[in-house]
């Protein structure tokens, strides 16, 4: 009970500290802006630890953060193998293939109204398919290894990229297109010098949405067949053997990988679309 009370006190203290930081002159500085979420995150972890220990929560329901950290530290070898299998091979390759394919189709759709009316609805139809339905089929087609996971990821990221790119390519003012016409610019010149740059904020919206979809797709697809490694495989087998600390470690890896992936795309976005009002 004392530990539970300590959790309450800690929560109040952290709250007070964050309010103070947010209200002080530090609030707008880099230190202040980093300190608030860090204090919040650390206090959530500490409260979690205290509550689990204080209330004697069973390991199977919720392991304490320190237990998860111990497992994480002792199993880094396995976690790395799983990460390579699922995130690097499955998610990233699927993401790259899916994004390139969607981009190419978007360009084709943009050139032809026939394709716009034909392909866009099919894209929407594919996007509406539940992953638990498509994943087993794709595993059947492409085998247990990462190729089938990449295929699932391709299906998942395709539509958001497609829709955003098509919309982005349409996002130029009539005046800007007229300007290119007065230069007698060709289709490709107009595309490269005007429409693609103008589309980039939209494209990056799609790319960012797709990062999280890619990781989810690659992990879930492993539930339907995989070699004896991979984050999804490890989660499903560890749940079966009640090794919840391992499950949470994989979740931590997934969260870290997802955040880094998203962050990396956001960095590239900032570099490419520096000119957009949302970035400058």
């Amino acid at each position: 009970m004392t530990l539970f009370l300590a959790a309450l006190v800690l929560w109040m203290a952290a709250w007070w500290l964050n309010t103070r930081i947010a209200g002080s002159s530090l609030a707008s500085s880099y230190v202040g802006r980093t300190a608030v979420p860090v204090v919040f995150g650390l206090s959530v972890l500490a409260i979690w630890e205290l509550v689990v220990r204080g209330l004697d929560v069973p390991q199977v329901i919720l392991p304490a953060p320190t237990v998860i950290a111990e497992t994480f530290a002792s199993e880094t070898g396995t976690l790395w193998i799983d990460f390579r299998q699922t995130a690097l091979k499955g998610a990233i390759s699927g993401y790259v293939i899916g994004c390139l394919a969607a981009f190419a189709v978007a360009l084709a759709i943009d050139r032809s109204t026939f394709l716009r009316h034909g392909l866009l609805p099919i894209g929407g139809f594919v996007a509406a398919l539940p992953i638990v339905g498509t994943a087993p089929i794709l595993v059947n087609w492409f085998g247990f290894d990462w190729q089938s996971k990449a295929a699932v990821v391709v299906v998942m990221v395709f539509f958001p990229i497609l829709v955003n790119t098509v919309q982005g390519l349409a996002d130029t003012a009539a005046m800007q297109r007229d300007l290119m016409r007065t230069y007698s610019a060709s289709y490709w010149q107009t595309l490269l010098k005007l429409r693609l740059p103008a589309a980039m904020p939209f494209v990056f919206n799609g790319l960012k949405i797709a990062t999280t979809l890619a990781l989810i797709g690659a992990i879930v697809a492993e539930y339907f067949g995989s070699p004896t490694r991979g984050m999804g495989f490890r989660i499903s087998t560890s749940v079966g053997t009640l090794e919840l600390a391992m499950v949470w470690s994989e979740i931590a890896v997934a969260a870290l990988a997802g955040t880094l992936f998203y962050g990396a795309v956001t960095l590239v976005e900032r570099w490419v679309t520096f000119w957009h009002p949302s970035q400058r």
Partner: protein
Amino acid sequence: MSQAAAIEAKNLDLTFETGDGSIQALQDVTLEIGKGEFVSFIGPSGCGKTTFLRVVAGLETPTGGEVRVNGTSPDEARRDRAYGYVFQEAGLYPWRTIAGNVRLPLEIMGYSKSEMADRVNRVLELVELSGFENKHPWQLSGGMQQRASIARALAFDADILLMDEPFGALDEIVRDHLNEQLLGLWDHTGKTIGFVTHSIPEAVYLSTRIVVMSPRPGRITDIIDNPLPRKRPLDIRDTPEFLEVAQRIRKGLRAGQSYGD
């Protein structure tokens, strides 16, 4: 039609088909603009002044009549880089620097790297934007942006400059300054300029000839030869000659305008 004309329009008609009926944007417009002239088009909105400029630029296709630019069709003239077009908005690409924006037409037309650099420097100097090469458009004021867009239209040395209310969105002070600059630029480059405006003082101050137009259907109601000398200080706008021309424009505008609807 004479050979010296930069722009010749003969019995030009243009009807737009819209959802609720057709709109006659231009009716029987006949006009000849000689090389080196500065011609302003003035009239209320809907009088077809912008449409006429767009027809000359080949951005619209007339439904009747004929238009020749440097003795060729507007499309050919465009391929010959015969004209630069300045829109009401500067329309600079925000992802390009000022120099990059001015370079845009040159890149499309395939100039060499050194030639591009030379021309960009020269036209930026012409519009007094030297030193701003590496700024992005959003870092500049509206007047400077519009000057950059004029530099962009000048970069490939077209003989004809078509300007569609280029200073319409700017405040009076900036406008006066740019008018002065434009006049100087016209004076020492000898370009032919077609200039759409709805400011009477601007039209009188700048032009050698003023074309007064009226709407429904868009047509020419008066063409005024401007008697003012080529060199025009800003305070010429207080002289009786200036006011006389302005008055005639105003009368022309009133005559063409039916306030019944």
